[in-house]
């Protein structure tokens, strides 16, 4: 897992988010304020620019740059939350990057967002997609599967986790204001987390 792969990860995520922007915004319209797609699209465009400009020399640098850019450019709840995921990953990632090292860094990122957002599994947030993805990665490392296989499993776990947010009642973020009316809708942040994980699996292929 080299530096280019990490750059490609964000480029592919940016492409996917652009493609899915309106769906993300629609999900946010249902239980939030209709800006999640726009927010992430703006943020990832900036991330790609920042990566192009700074020519990072390590995977850790890619992650830190991406995280800082998200914090500095997105705003809203998802900006600091996603930003913290990647900044924390960047801090935790050891060189050279192995699947095990990536898995550990990813888990550190997920913990960072749980702490910052005070969110736990089942609160109907991005954590519900990110935490299962992290668990899938850890299991893949334990089982010694290929990088590609591991990332595919992580993407699948994220997708299942996002789907599982549909019947949940939100306890964090704007959706929590709706009380029971938040039930029956997929969490936009969980849906965008799936895009991150799918993008990673794609570029690794």
């Amino acid at each position, binding site marked *: 897992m080299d530096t280019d792969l990490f750059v490609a990860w964000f480029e592919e995520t940016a492409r996917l988010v652009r493609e899915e922007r309106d769906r993300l915004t629609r999900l946010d319209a249902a*239980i939030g304020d209709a800006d999640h797609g726009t927010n992430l699209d703006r943020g990832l465009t900036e991330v790609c620019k920042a990566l192009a400009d700074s020519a990072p020399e390590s995977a850790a640098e890619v992650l830190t740059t991406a995280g800082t850019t998200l914090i500095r450019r997105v*705003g*809203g709840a998802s900006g600091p939350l996603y930003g913290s995921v990647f900044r924390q990953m960047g801090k935790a990632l050891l060189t050279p990057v192995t699947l095990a090292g990536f898995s550990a860094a990813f888990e550190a990122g997920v913990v960072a967002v749980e702490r910052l957002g005070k969110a736990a599994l089942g609160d109907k947030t991005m954590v519900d997609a990110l935490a299962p993805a992290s668990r899938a990665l850890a299991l893949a490392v334990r089982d010694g599967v290929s990088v590609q296989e591991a990332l595919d499993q992580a993407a699948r776990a994220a997708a299942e986790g996002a789907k599982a947010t549909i019947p949940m009642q939100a306890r964090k973020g704007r959706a929590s204001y709706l009380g029971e009316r938040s039930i029956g809708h997929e969490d936009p942040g969980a849906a965008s987390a799936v895009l991150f994980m799918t993008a990673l699996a794609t570029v690794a292929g």
Partner: protein
Amino acid sequence: MKKLINTAESVVEDALNGMAAAHPSLRIRDHVVYRAQGPRRGKVGLVSGGGSGHEPLHVGFVGHGMLDAACAGEIFTSPVPDPIIEATLGVDGGAGVLHIVKNYTGDVLNFEMAAELVEGVEVASVLVDDDVAVQDSLYTAGRRGTGATLFVEKIAGALAEEGAPLARVAAVAQEVDERSRSFGIALTSCTTPSAGKPTFDLPETEVELGIGIHGEPGRARVPLAPARELAEVAMEAVHRDQPLRGDLLVMVNGMGGTPLMELYVVFAEVAAFIKGKGARVTRSLVGNYVTSLDMQGFSVSVCLLDDALTRLWDAPVETPALRWGR
């Protein structure tokens, strides 16, 4: 969607340019609105901000007796930490800076990050969370900050103008928040420029109860009713949470697309309700102050006054959207 804009992407920037052109008393840089004359030595600085789309909140409340700076995020999107840091440094007069933050995950996180990163300036924060439509429980992100933000900014601003120290300014801000409650009702959804269509569909015969200020759907949908009944629903919710008593500051606030005439119709009902509970409206505001783009509807905010707060409310204020006494 029909809006007076150039492009969805440029709307915040374009509106800020309009503010700069209209108000020589303001200086606007990088999506932060400052008082043109800069910080006053020894005065606590007041910084607020949040997503745009709530105008005049916050940008229209920068000026003597109220805010020193307001950070304008994208539509309904909390500003990022950088401009908050800039604003904090820019308004410091050596006496520290108060961040007035509406209680939304995004606002809280971005202001927190900014406060942590600011160096050399003492920063205190107050969270505004007045919206009784949201239960303040473990199962929510806590109450939203809505109309009472104006009360907090005005009253804390007046105290800061008098030269009070940061701790006292923060304390009065906190006190105003604790004494304030709000509830909102939407007749229509709003349309964000980038989405281009209404955030939610609301049939001609229904209203949303307990809305926020971001086009979030409310807690429940009920049939459209006369202004009297809607005002009662809102006031009952406020009263249930904090019984009305004594002297009250009352704001009937439009959500952006509601004409003044209708707000006065609502105010008459609100005033009658309050009289019925034996309390008194001693100060009031009627108008579009804390809005949600083009949404039709209203919110009512009530603050329990005492003599000290009344005096601070009455103190001179000179901002684009609130002005008296000078």
